[in-house]
């Protein structure tokens, strides 16, 4: 039984805009799944329908065997949602926000208090339990949304851009927390604009573009489709003339910085050997572009061109 099975999911908004055009998608139990796509691609509409915040036009949604039309309460009980935008009563204390959420899921008060405390401690928010929501920073509010979504122990956690606008330290700690949660068995679906995040966390991926699934694959398989990779090298000393290296395309960014595009048949060791033979020493290197980002941009560009040709 999949965690999420969606068939022919369609959403047409008032005014005729078709946000989803008959999407079929499955997510297995225990998966850490990324849903990517440019702005306006239909990601949030998709999540909104699964979480019962948006009415679908057609199609079916099934969560852990519960059908959204026939058993909406069963579906909702399985899902925890971390939405893209803050949706709190800003005048309530932190603890009460989580406690109320537990109550909405029918968890008795005594048990709800225990769970709320556990959720807040997990997200390092226990010390702020009496603070009013409006006094929290953006990063703390993001963490609180995760704590709130976990209080009823959902089997499927859906995060819609959970790390948008948070600093690197908090983002890394949230990644670590989500990895642990997934390892404990919670299925996670994540949308993000940080493709590094998807590459680092997720095993499987779907790319939505213009309301359709443009790609559905494992992250590893997708990355294997890349034929070349580009690195930026910081050099020890100036290099005025670039040598010809077979299999590597070198380009000057400035006198002390090189950009190297290399075929996947070659290795970094081979690159360093070739550079050393030509008297070039490297201090450091970095990927020019996140690999998934590059694939994503290529895919979106290709689709846009196809759509243009079609028109």
């Amino acid at each position, binding site marked *: 039984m999949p965690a999420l099975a969606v068939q022919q999911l369609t959403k047409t908004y008032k005014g005729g805009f078709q946000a989803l055009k008959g999407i079929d998608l499955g997510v297995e139990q225990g998966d850490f799944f990324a849903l990517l796509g440019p702005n306006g691609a239909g990601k949030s509409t998709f999540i909104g329908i699964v979480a*019962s915040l948006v*009415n679908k036009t057609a199609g079916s949604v099934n969560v852990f065997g519960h059908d959204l039309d026939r058993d909406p309460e069963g579906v909702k009980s399985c899902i925890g949602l971390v939405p893209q935008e*803050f*949706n709190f009563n800003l005048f309530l204390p932190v603890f009460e926000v989580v406690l109320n*959420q537990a*109550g909405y899921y*029918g968890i008795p008060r005594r048990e709800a208090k225990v769970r709320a405390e556990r959720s807040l401690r997990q997200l390092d928010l226990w010390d702020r339990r009496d603070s009013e929501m409006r006094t929290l920073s953006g990063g703390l509010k993001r963490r609180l949304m995760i704590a709130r979504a976990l209080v009823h122990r959902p089997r499927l956690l859906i995060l819609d851009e959970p790390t948008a606008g948070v600093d690197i330290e908090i983002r890394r700690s949230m990644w670590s927390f989500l990895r642990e949660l997934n390892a404990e068995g919670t299925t996670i679906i994540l949308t993000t604009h940080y493709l590094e995040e998807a590459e680092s966390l997720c095993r499987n991926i779907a790319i939505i573009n213009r309301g359709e699934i443009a790609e559905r694959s494992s992250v590893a398989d997708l990355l294997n489709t890349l034929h070349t990779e580009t690195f930026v090298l910081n050099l020890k000393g100036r290099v005025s003339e670039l040598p010809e290296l077979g299999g590597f395309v070198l380009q000057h960014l400035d006198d002390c910085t090189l950009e190297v595009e290399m075929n996947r048949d070659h290795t970094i060791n081979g690159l360093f050997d070739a550079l050393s033979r030509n008297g070039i020493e490297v201090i450091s290197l970095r990927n020019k572009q996140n690999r998934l980002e590059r694939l994503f941009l290529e895919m979106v560009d290709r689709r846009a061109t196809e759509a243009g040709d079609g028109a």
Partner: protein
Amino acid sequence: MTRLLSDWHRYWITFATILTKEILRFTRIWVQTILPSVITTTLYFVIFGRLIGDRIGTMEGFAYLDFIVPGLVLMGVITNSYSNVVSSFYSSKFSRYIEELLISPAPNWVILAGYVAGGVARGLVVGGAVMLVAMVFTDLQIHSLGIMLLICLMTATLFSLGGFINAIYANSFDDISIVPTFVLTPLTYLGGVFYSIELLPDVWQILSLANPLLYMVNAFRYGLLGVSDIPIGLAFGMILILIVVLAAISLNLLRRGVGIKT
């Protein structure tokens, strides 16, 4: 059977959570929610009752001050039950924390019941406070406590439902004050709070019968004083029908997601 019992237990917890949240909301800001009605009705008692009332004389055999008590109490119940639900539910829409409930397995009728119960609670608290103020100015003997409480409860329920529907359709904070200002207040004043409709010319008496508030004020007056311009059974029937109609409309709006889902 076990599943059914566990579902009902869950629904009860959700209902109690919404109700507790609503009660905490209006009691935290009691200076804005409870005190104004008490001050306003105290002024009514002083001005219309003490200062002007003595010159008016009696109304349906009661001192004018005694006659206006039921209407003033019910006016507090009506405006507060309505405004509690309309402002609370609209705020939850505006700040999007209604999503906390929409994603939860709470059925629509439990959500509606929770918000309505919150409105009823505030209506009854304010009604009780106004009644206490009335005790200071008058020496009333309650005719039927049961009828009084039942009418109070039903009226608060009806106007909480009205506030809920208003909140569903509201698109701005201006929209939540239009109905209280331009509909509720005039209907309350024309609903026999300050006079018996027997004082009106025949045409206006007939027109007044189309005002639902007339039935509530008179039924409550019957509970308190034992007099009414209209049959008490008709008043109960009218309020009950309106509650059923507004509850059905509210549930239909929730089911379709009007104003809260896209």
